[in-house]
């Protein structure tokens, strides 16, 4: 098994070693499906627009709750020293942890699959939009997850890591909201638009949600995710000095 694979295996199992994992997944499913079902029955629309539309806000709470333990827990117990003296690169340890958290999120997402299956049986949903929506959910989650693992490293305490992660994700969300960027433009001319274009995630996410697959949107999510992972790796190396 690869080095990152060994870490992945342990971290993924760790999620399910505690009842919190199951609570997280149940909360994820109940809230998302509940939020989705209400308009679904009221408006009789055979699509998942509302479900995916809710995600950027909902994941701001959910993802940092998943990532908060990733480094903070190791730093609080003595295991951080164990991990950082294993004969593997710190970036391998980080990737193992990152993908374990992603796998946990994917398990939660898989739990929502009955929705599109039901839709397909009841009506004719736009499958392109459903596929685009899931891809967007994955990329969005991946970005928040990278932000979350980075902020988890900065702090020793899980709750602080959760709050910091939430604030960072919220900032990424906010700068992409037109009303916010317009306000910032009002303070410093053009700066709000710049932030929105460079970092704002909503335009990219909404494009995917419509089922439009463009390189620019993929590059945004993957690129910004990579930036936070690299920041995390730099922090891991820098901490020695």
């Amino acid at each position, binding site marked *: *098994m690869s080095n990152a694979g060994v870490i992945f295996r342990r971290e993924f199992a760790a999620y399910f*070693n505690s009842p919190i994992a199951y609570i997280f997944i149940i909360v994820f499913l109940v809230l998302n499906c509940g939020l989705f079902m209400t308009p679904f029955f009221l408006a009789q629309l055979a699509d998942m627009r509302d479900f995916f539309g809710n995600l950027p806000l909902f994941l701001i709470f959910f993802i940092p709750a998943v990532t908060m333990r990733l480094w903070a827990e190791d730093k609080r*117990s003595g295991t951080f*020293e164990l991990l950082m*003296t*294993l*004969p*593997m690169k710190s970036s391998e340890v980080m990737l193992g942890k990152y993908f374990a958290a992603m796998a946990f999120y994917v398990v939660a997402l898989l739990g929502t699959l009955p929705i599109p299956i039901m839709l397909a049986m009841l009506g004719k949903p736009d499958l392109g939009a459903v596929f685009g929506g899931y891809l967007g959910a994955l990329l969005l989650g991946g970005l928040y997850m990278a932000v979350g693992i980075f902020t988890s490293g900065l702090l020793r305490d899980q709750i602080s890591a959760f709050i910091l992660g939430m604030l960072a994700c919220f900032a990424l969300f906010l700068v992409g909201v037109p009303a916010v960027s317009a306000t910032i433009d009002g303070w410093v001319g053009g700066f709000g638009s710049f932030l929105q274009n460079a970092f704002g995630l909503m335009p990219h996410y909404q494009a995917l949600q419509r089922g439009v697959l463009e390189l620019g949107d993929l590059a945004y999510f993957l690129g910004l995710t990579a930036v936070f992972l690299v920041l995390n790796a730099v922090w891991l190396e820098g901490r*020695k000095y």
Partner: protein
Amino acid sequence: MIEVRDVTKRFGTTVALDGVSFRLDKGEILGFLGPNGAGKSTAMKIVTTFLAPDGGTVSVDGIDVLRNPLEVRSRIGYLPENHPLYVDMMVHEYLQFVGRARGLAGDELRRRLEWVVEACGLGSVFRKPINELSKGFRQRTGLAQALIHDPEVLILDEPTSGLDPLQIIGIRELIQGLARSKTIIFSTHILQEVSPVTDRVVIINGGRIVADGRIGELERAAMGRNRIFVAYRAPAAAAEAALRDLGGLHEVRPVAGRDGAARFEVRADFGQDVLAPLGRLGQSHGWDLLELQESPFSLEDTFIALTRQGAVPREVSHV
């Protein structure tokens, strides 16, 4: 095997290590001593590549810790001072995890697991969750983790802290058993633990090495002179005056003794025979000799003398 040269390490304004140097040959065991906050753990973290030194060089088996940390790590088994345990795992899961992370697999992993479980006495808790273990078993699980890949070098930060006397003996015997094949550094606060395991010690205080050598040499070097206890059945003042007249004694100090006994602690140069003159002194005055013994300084006395801030000038140290 381990070479630490002129290492400095600062945390903000705290100087944790200030020009630390020592070396250790293959197969040697080193007792690493020092009061709280002396810099023991910091030095060990640098040898294990967890921290980088601010200045100076460290190499393990000729490999520089900054240039090739992964090679260094693969040669080292490390027990950090805080238990490096995942309490949500069972003992066997945890040891398997560390084994795999250290590149073991299949039959080899199974053999090594069996070995460490036997060596560390973990048989009875092998399938228990770590958060249900007592402190002693946690410590042993940590030790097992450090041994799983059969490393050439062991760095053990207070391996016996918090253990009961029987468990301390168990760990000591384990270290003794490993001694033949491995190079070991262990830190401790309990000085009596050192001499049964090794006679090579390094004492560190305030981030500086204040002594490095064999226990016996250090005891003499640190205190400068031999210490003798003598007691006569005699009037205290007369005995003290007679001792001061005797010559060859550097210091005469009355100390508490049995009723009717005048008891003194005296100092003399090493190699100088003072026992015979002290015996004759009693005879010539008609005093019964109640006690006469050389009482070499213990590691404890040495430790206290060397680590009491400013008590001992640096020249005295054996560096």
